[in-house]
Structures are given as structure tokens and as C-alpha cells.
């Protein structure tokens, strides 16, 4: 190491993104030399495992690429396969597919805005934390998310990996009464959605204008979801079938997601790209809502993506209501398809942007080859480009913590779905030394706090009366002697217990459990002994007057704790010859018993 030191900031996980990734930033001489958004989501090889499968299995299998946007994968797959088998033009199927997609935009966008992105702008680490100060806003978001899930559930049975869609249409027609009831709730939520647009626009969004190319579908008369040509802000206008002639994926060493380029350049897909290219396809109500925010679209500020997402929530509600109102009578839930050999392409607008599928089938409709390009791998290079530009504008003199926070914020603007493309975001920052005297923020961060809730619990059991109470009294005497204070704080806790039902709560997260009980009717009075597990029944076999015997206590603990703690039992022998009260007996044996328990704890700790 000469003039350069390497700092590893262990943000073990980039919070609030879907999936696992890491970021390497190389800063030298106050300039960013390298930005790698590292995606580590283990490859699941979907394209290969689809090979040989029958066409009707494809919608259910590709849904598993992403739990947040399964509808997008299903819709792309059915459109691609129908391109081979014969396009489905049934108006009911078409309308229902759009309604299905509205549900997914609504739930995915609401989840992203409230659970993932908004805490960034308001200084919280999670939505539940944010809810303490913004209860109305968080609850509004969760309601909108639930409404999206309800649309998907109505059509597909469940909101994650729904089971309703098939090649040709749907497996069944949803109940029309339920659909009308849903419409009432969707209409009522429009007010929430327009408030949400204003709320997002009023967040403290950095001013960060950048030149970038937007890519989205464009349809002659609809805001794009399931159909359209692929266009870009740089003048591209192609059929989805020609995608591979213009967009190239390539592998880089630092990522399991393939990177995508349009004619050799990074590009943006997703809500902001869609609005930038399809503003005129939005209904007047959404357009005027956007105008009221004072933000001008098309926008070149990626921080406006949260507003674009909110606007699409409003749009999805309006569109869902319109679709239900104008829903044609269904001739059938699905058109019968005729499997045949061929190649088909499906391109739709997933919540996070353009999703492209290509399948080749044999004569029986089995998959010969598949190719899937998810939105996040398309955005990955744009994210790296954005981090570079955004951090340079923000100022590289900022601390690692500030730079990391800013980089994470930039990444979240893209709502990356790393399962689609990956989950840990480890930031590996390499840069030249700071000015002398300025300590690294790392140096200030102490050890991880010890969260362990009393791994060792000592419980006196039995009734609190008479000589039976000697277990209790021994524990009290241990407490008075400062027994727990000789160990590190939080390691040892002392308890008493007389009823079995109270035991489970006392041994939460316990690893070593010490039980102390009276052993009545003994000859050897005034002593104590360790009771081995195997001897428990024998030693304490006789029915006792206890509310809780040591054998019962052990049985309870072993049955409720699935990760059974180590249990060590001590008996304090009492009998007719025992002199004095339980208090006095406990006082006589506490020193020796304490030493024995200490030895047990030490033995356990050193294992």
C-alpha cells in the first residue's frame, strides 16, 4: 500500500431493495475511478430449466422468477407463446389481463414507495419506524398495496404467484359481484392516490438533472402495459421481435445479472421512462395531477421516479375502475390454443420496466429454448452511471457514510429487483487517504452491541411455602450475593417459578438452564447435590406436594423448546432433621451451590 488505502465499509445488507447486491466504489484523487454495482443473487438458471417443459407450465414457472412481479412474467410468457400458437384477440381476456397488471403495478409501486423508498427521504430506516411519525401516510400506502393485492387475488387466487392465468386467457371468470365490490373500493381509493402524488412531489428530492435515454413500450391509444412497440427518447421505434438486434446483454465479472446496452449505451426502463415517453397517453386526470405537482415531465431527474410511480398508482386505480365498468361479457375464460412449433416474443411493462421474453417451441408445444431479459439487468449500467454522476455532483469530500447513503438512495430510485436479475449490498469503498487528522467513520463505530437476551437462566422451582421454598430461597440468596454481576451484563438471569405454564416465557432464547429445587424426605439433610438427567425420575419419582416438580419442569422445558437448552438440575436436600427455615437452609448452602453453578456456566461458555 502506498498512497492508496482500501476501506471496507461493511453495510452487510443494502436495506430496502429486493435482492442481494454490493457496490464497489473506487475513489482516487477526489475522482470516482470505478463503480460496480455487484449483484450476487445466485443464478437460478430459469431459461435452462424451462427447456423440455410443456407450454402450459411456463406461466407458473416463470412467475417464480420474482415474487413481487409474478404477473409481469406470466403476462410476458402468455403473450410470447400465443404469438406462436395464434394471438388471442378476445376482448374480455385482453381487458382482464390489463386489470391483472393494474393490480401488480398498484401493489408493487405502493410497496416500493412506502416500505422501500420514502424512509430514505424522511430519515427513517424502515416504514414501521416511519409510521410513528407519519401514521396516516404509511397506512395509506399499505392500504393501496393491499388493494393491488386484492385485484390480483380476485383474478388469480393469491397475490404472490397467482394461479389464475394461462396461455389463452384465464382458468376461470372471477365472480362479478366481487368485482363490483372491488370497484367501489378502488374508486374510493382515488383520493388516497392523488394525495400520495402530492406527498411524493413534496418530499425533499435532490435536484439531479442527468442526460439519459428512456426506453418503454408505446401503444397507439393506451398507456403501455401488455402491448406496443419499443421506443426510446433517442428515436428508437421497433417491433418487440427486433429487440435482440438493438439490445445486447453481456456478462461482467462482478455480477450474476447480465448487463444490457442499447446500441452500446446504458438506458433507463421503468415508471419514469414510461411517463417520459407516454405522458400523452395518460388520462387527463393523471396529467393534471402531475401538473399540479410543479414537476415538469418528461424529467431527467431520476429522483422524480418516486413521483412517476405515485402517478402510475393513480393511473392503475383509474384504469382498473374503467376496465371493470366497460368489461365485455366473457364468451369463455380462455381461448383454446393450438400448440405448434415456432418462435414467439412477449414484451410487457413490468412495474420496474420493460420485460422481454422469447420462446422457441416444438410441434407439441414444448419449450426448446427460452430467453428472458428482466428490467433490472437493463437498468444496471444506468444505475452505475447515475451513481457516478450523482456522487460527483453531491461532492466526493463527503464522509463514507454520507456517500454510501447517497449511493443507496440513487440505487433505490430504480427499485431494483435483484431476484429478477439479485440482495446484500455491501459497499466496498476504495479511496485515497483522507486529509490528515480526519478519522475514518469506521474507526468510530464500535463493536456490534450484544443483543443476547440472558442465555443463562437460573430458576428456583417449587412452591413458595415451607421447606419446599428452599429452591426459591436459594435463588434469592444467589441474587443477594451478586451472583449474576460476576458475569458479563445480560448473561445470567435469576428467576423463580411455581407453575408449569409460566416456564416457557422464562426460557425464551435460553441456552443454559439451571433448575434448583427442594428434594424433600432425605436423610442427608442440609446439603445439595447435582441431579443427573437420567436420575431425574428416580430421584424425584415420588409424587411431591409441589405445584411443580423438577421432573415436570424439565419435561416442560424440553417439550416447548425446540432448540432445547442444556438443562442442569440441582436439588437441595431437606428432611425431618433439617434445622431452620427455608431461608436459613438456603443461606447455609448458597456459597457451595453458587460455586457449582459457576463451574457449570464456565464449562458451557468454553465449549
Amino acid at each position: 500500500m502506498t498512497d492508496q488505502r482500501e476501506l471496507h465499509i461493511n453495510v452487510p445488507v443494502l436495506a430496502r431493495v429486493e435482492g442481494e447486491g454490493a457496490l464497489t466504489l473506487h475513489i482516487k484523487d477526489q475522482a470516482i475511478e470505478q463503480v460496480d454495482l455487484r449483484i450476487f443473487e445466485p443464478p437460478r438458471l430459469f431459461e435452462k430449466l424451462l427447456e423440455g417443459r410443456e407450454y402450459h407450465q411456463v406461466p407458473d414457472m416463470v412467475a417464480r422468477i420474482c415474487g413481487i412481479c409474478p404477473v409481469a412474467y406470466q403476462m410476458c410468457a402468455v403473450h410470447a407463446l400465443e404469438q406462436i400458437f395464434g394471438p388471442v384477440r378476445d376482448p374480455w381476456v385482453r381487458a382482464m389481463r390489463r386489470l391483472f397488471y393494474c393490480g401488480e403495478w398498484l401493489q408493487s409501486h405502493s410497496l416500493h414507495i412506502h416500505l422501500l423508498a420514502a424512509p430514505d427521504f424522511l430519515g427513517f430506516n424502515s416504514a414501521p419506524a416511519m409510521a410513528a411519525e407519519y401514521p396516516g401516510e404509511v397506512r395509506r400506502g399499505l392500504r393501496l398495496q393491499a388493494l393491488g393485492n386484492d385485484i390480483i387475488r380476485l383474478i388469480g387466487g393469491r397475490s404472490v404467484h397467482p394461479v389464475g392465468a394461462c396461455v389463452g386467457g384465464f382458468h376461470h371468470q372471477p365472480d362479478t359481484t366481487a368485482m363490483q365490490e372491488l370497484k367501489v373500493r378502488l374508486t374510493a381509493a382515488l383520493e388516497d392516490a392523488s394525495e400520495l402524488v402530492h406527498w411524493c412531489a413534496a418530499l425533499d428530492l435532490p435536484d439531479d438533472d442527468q442526460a439519459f435515454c428512456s426506453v418503454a413500450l408505446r401503444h397507439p391509444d393506451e398507456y403501455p402495459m401488455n402491448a406496443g412497440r419499443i421506443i426510446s427518447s433517442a428515436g428508437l421505434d421497433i417491433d418487440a421481435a427486433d429487440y435482440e438486434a438493438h439490445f445486447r446483454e453481456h456478462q461482467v465479472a462482478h455480477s450474476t445479472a447480465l448487463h444490457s446496452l442499447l446500441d452500446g449505451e446504458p438506458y433507463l426502463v421503468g415508471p419514469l421512462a414510461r411517463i417520459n415517453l407516454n405522458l400523452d397517453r395518460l388520462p387527463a386526470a393523471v396529467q393534471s395531477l402531475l401538473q399540479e405537482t410543479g414537476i415538469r415531465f418528461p424529467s431527467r431527474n431520476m429522483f422524480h421516479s418516486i413521483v412517476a410511480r405515485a402517478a402510475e398508482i393513480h393511473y392503475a386505480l383509474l384504469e382498473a375502475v374503467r376496465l371493470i365498468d366497460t368489461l365485455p361479457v366473457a364468451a369463455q375464460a380462455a381461448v383454446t390454443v393450438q400448440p405448434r412449433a415456432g418462435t414467439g416474443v412477449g414484451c410487457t411493462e413490468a412495474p420496474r420496466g420493460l420485460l422481454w421474453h422469447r420462446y422457441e417451441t416444438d410441434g407439441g408445444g414444448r419449450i426448446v429454448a427460452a430467453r428472458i431479459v428482466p428490467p433490472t439487468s437493463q437498468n444496471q449500467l444506468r444505475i452505475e452511471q447515475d451513481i457516478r454522476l450523482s456522487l460527483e455532483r453531491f461532492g466526493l469530500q463527503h464522509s463514507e457514510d454520507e456517500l454510501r447513503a447517497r449511493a443507496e438512495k440513487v440505487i433505490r430510485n430504480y427499485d431494483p429487483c435483484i431476484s429478477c436479475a439479485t440482495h446484500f449490498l455491501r459497499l466496498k469503498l476504495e479511496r485515497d487517504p483522507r486529509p490528515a487528522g480526519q478519522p475514518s467513520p469506521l474507526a468510530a463505530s464500535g463493536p456490534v452491541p450484544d443483543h443476547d437476551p440472558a442465555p443463562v437462566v437460573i430458576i428456583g422451582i417449587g412452591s413458595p411455602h415451607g421447606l419446599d421454598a428452599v429452591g426459591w430461597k436459594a435463588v434469592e440468596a444467589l441474587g443477594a450475593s451478586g451472583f449474576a454481576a460476576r458475569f458479563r451484563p445480560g448473561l445470567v438471569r435469576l428467576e423463580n417459578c411455581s407453575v408449569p405454564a409460566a416456564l416457557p416465557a422464562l426460557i425464551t432464547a435460553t441456552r443454559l438452564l439451571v433448575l434448583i429445587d427442594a428434594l424433600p424426605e432425605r436423610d442427608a439433610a442440609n446439603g445439595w447435590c447435582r441431579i443427573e438427567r437420567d436420575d431425574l425420575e428416580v430421584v424425584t419419582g415420588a409424587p411431591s406436594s409441589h405445584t411443580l416438580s423438577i421432573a415436570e419442569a424439565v419435561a416442560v422445558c424440553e417439550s416447548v423448546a425446540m432448540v432445547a437448552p442444556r438443562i442442569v438440575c440441582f436439588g437441595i436436600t431437606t428432611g425431618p432433621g433439617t434445622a431452620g427455615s427455608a431461608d436459613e437452609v438456603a443461606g447455609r448452602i448458597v456459597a457451595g451451590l453458587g460455586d457449582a453453578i459457576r463451574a457449570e456456566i464456565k464449562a458451557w461458555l468454553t465449549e
Partner: protein
Amino acid sequence: MKPSIAVHKFSSCDGCQLAFLNLGEDLLTLFEQVDVRHFAEAGPVDASAEVDISFVEGSISTPDEIERIREVRAHSRYLVTIGACATAGGLQALRNLADSGEWMAAIYATPEHIHTLDAVAPVSEHVKVDRELWGCPVNSRQLLAAINSLLAGVVPRDEPDSICLECKRQGHACVMVTRGVPCMGPVTRSGCGALCPGVDRGCYGCYGPCEKPSTEVLAHWFAGLGLTPEQIAQRFLAFTPEAPAFYAAGRSRLTADD
């Protein structure tokens, strides 16, 4: 002291974590009642925190994931796997049946940069698992029932019955008996609410095998409906390919067909 939980992700689609994130306003109640120490997607990050219950989504498919799952086990009182991937390998475990090196080379130009294990494994192959929640995905009802049981100090109720029982309770007409549609319901574990027969289609087995599944009887029935051995194998080898009963039923037919 509030009980503590963690949610960890391994190789998966994220769909089972959504059973938490899709709780709606109940999500806020959950965060009030338990101390969520690690749940990256929801915000809290402290992967090595000691917790009462760790929920694990996803299968183990890289050397790094083996290390991580051991850490999770060491810091958790209970470890509960959620979903088909964590419990039975998931869809991605289908690569165990093939030459995954060849697959990798087909997708990645330089597969040497991709570090994976030879076989995708359920969590229980690497560490002790205290409870398995089946489903692709699990639903919120299953999760809340598990949390409530564990926190009350009792073992969560298993739901080993077949879909058929759930289907009958819902009053659906049997798709296989009435329409001859192949249905995995008779050998599949309940818990989903018999969704597929509810939308007029056959169950595709995403909750894995039920208790004592009569896979051979069902396979015989499928053959009677005209399915080839390969088609039958593909039904068993789909969402929970590492579940022994489904693996055996599927694998034997693939071999017979070779």
C-alpha cells in the same frame, strides 16, 4: 422484553418474505409486538443479531450461503424455513437433475465467474431446522400462526393433510373426477386453501408432499388420463423437487423413459 425475529433471504424469488410485507396495516402491529432485528427488505439490518425466531427464505446454492446459514443457525433460538426453496430446494433445484455446468455455460459467457454449489439444497441439509412452512409461496396466515405458536411456547401445528381435504371443505367439485384434469391435490400438502381447484384447474403441487402421499397411485391415475411418463415426472419435479416423495416419483419415471 419483546420477542425478536429475523428474516433472511437466500436463493429465492422474494415471494415468501412478501407474506410479511403484504400484511397491510397488520405489518405495523407485527413490528409493535415483536422486535424485528434483521429484515433487509423491510429496513432493519443486523444479520448477526441474536433472535428468538429466524425465518429463512430460499435454498442454499453457493458456498457463501452455507457460511451464512450456519451463522443464522448460531444466532437463532428457532429456525423456521419459509417456502418451497428453503424447505425443498424450490424450482431452481431442478438443475440438480441436469448438468448445471453446461447450463451455466449456456447462460453466462464466462461461467468461471459464477460461484455455485454442484447441487441446490434445502436449508435442512446444512443446519438443523426447527419448523418447516411449506408453500410456493407461504401465505401470511401460515406465518402468523407460526409466530403466535412459537411465542406462546408451543410447537406450531403442522398441516400435513392433502389438498383434497381442504378442497372438499371448500365445496369445490373434484376437477379430476368431473373433468379428467390431472390434479396433484391428492398428494399435495394443504395450506393454500385449495386455490387451483377453486379457479377450475388442477393443483400443481407447490405446497410439496402431504403426509404419506400415494404418489404411485396418482401417477397410475395420471397415466390413465393419457399422460406420458415424462409428463408425469414433470408434475412431480417442479416446485419442490428435493422433497423425497416427489423426487422419487418423478426421478423413477425420467429414468424409465431414458
